[in-house]
């Protein structure tokens, strides 16, 4: 900063706030520059006006009972720190996208299911469980005879397309319900 350079408004603010690093230079310039001195005086006046604001009397007081009442109200109203707005928006967007995806996919799923529904019975939970159990046992048996040079082959699990579709739909619904509950708590 040269001696003849005018002081910026930001520098004047910092100077009056006692936060300027170059106080000596600012003061030197103020001693020769009427324009900057006038701006400094105007800013000082503003500071005085702000700080002249009188304190209002407050004599009503808070009773201990009302403090506890408010404490209960605050804790029931705000049991946890609210989620950031960005997260709430992201969750809302995800939920909206999931709904759209389900709506778009529904006709295709119905079309896909129509030839199977009458002819092929869907695998029951017990069947699937037994199949998985036997696959697991086979895999364990394979592991017990595992030899280093041979890479064990993971047994192929055969699941019907119907089962896969129901699984995907089920997971989507669970996800939607979970997010719905989360948002409902936030909106309360």
């Amino acid at each position, binding site marked *: 900063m040269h001696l003849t350079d005018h002081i910026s*408004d*930001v520098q004047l*603010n*910092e100077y009056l*706030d006692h*936060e300027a690093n170059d106080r000596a230079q600012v003061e030197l310039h103020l001693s020769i520059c009427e324009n900057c001195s006038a701006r400094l005086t*105007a*800013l000082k006046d*503003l*500071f005085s*006006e*702000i*700080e*002249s*604001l*009188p*304190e*209002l*009397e*407050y*004599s*009503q*007081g*808070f009773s*201990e009972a*009302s*403090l506890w009442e*408010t*404490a209960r109200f*605050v804790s029931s109203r705000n049991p946890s720190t609210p989620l950031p707005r960005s997260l709430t928006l992201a969750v809302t967007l995800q939920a909206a996208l999931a709904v759209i995806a389900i709506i778009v996919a529904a006709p295709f799923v119905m079309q896909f299911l129509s030839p199977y529904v009458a002819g092929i019975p869907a695998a029951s939970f017990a069947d699937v469980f037994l199949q998985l159990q036997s696959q697991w046992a086979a895999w364990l048996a394979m592991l017990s005879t595992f030899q280093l040079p041979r890479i064990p082959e993971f047994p192929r699990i055969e699941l019907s397309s119907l089962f896969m579709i129901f699984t995907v739909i089920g997971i989507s619904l669970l996800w939607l319900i979970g997010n719905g509950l989360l948002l409902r708590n936030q909106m309360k």
Partner: protein
Amino acid sequence: MSAPSDRDLIQRARRGDAEAFGELVLRHQTSVFNVCYRILHERAEAEDLAQETFIRARERLHTFDEERVFGPWVRRVAANVCLNHLESQKGTAELDEERDADESQRPETQVEVRERSEQIRSALASLPAHYRVVIELRHYQELSYEEIAAELSIPLSDVKSHLFRARKLLAEKLHAPD
């Protein structure tokens, strides 16, 4: 017998002495209420948030460093409570033009002072929330730029620019021709 110091009262309040905390409230309620009123410019809301400030203070009393002074600490809590309140209400409410209810007869000069004070309060109330809070912390609580940055968790450059813009806006509002 001399009155107990704030430190004594804090120690007793930490041990669960409700009366000691009540005494702390009594001592600091005016300054806390004024912090809230300067930021909110609405009496009922300022009273609610002043009360909430003391509840927060009571919850956080165990984190208070006894080497520090209680008054400035609780006023900072008040500023933060008000800022959170304003952030949660962003864009919903316009601040009311509230006048003091107590309009007793006073000399002319005092009326002028009151009118000017009201103009300053209105000008402050018209600022964006984060500008109001930096003005409160700088001018009324006399925090340094670094302390304000730490208190509000914002960069130092933001403190400088908020203060500069807030003052510029205030000057425009206060010195605008009627």
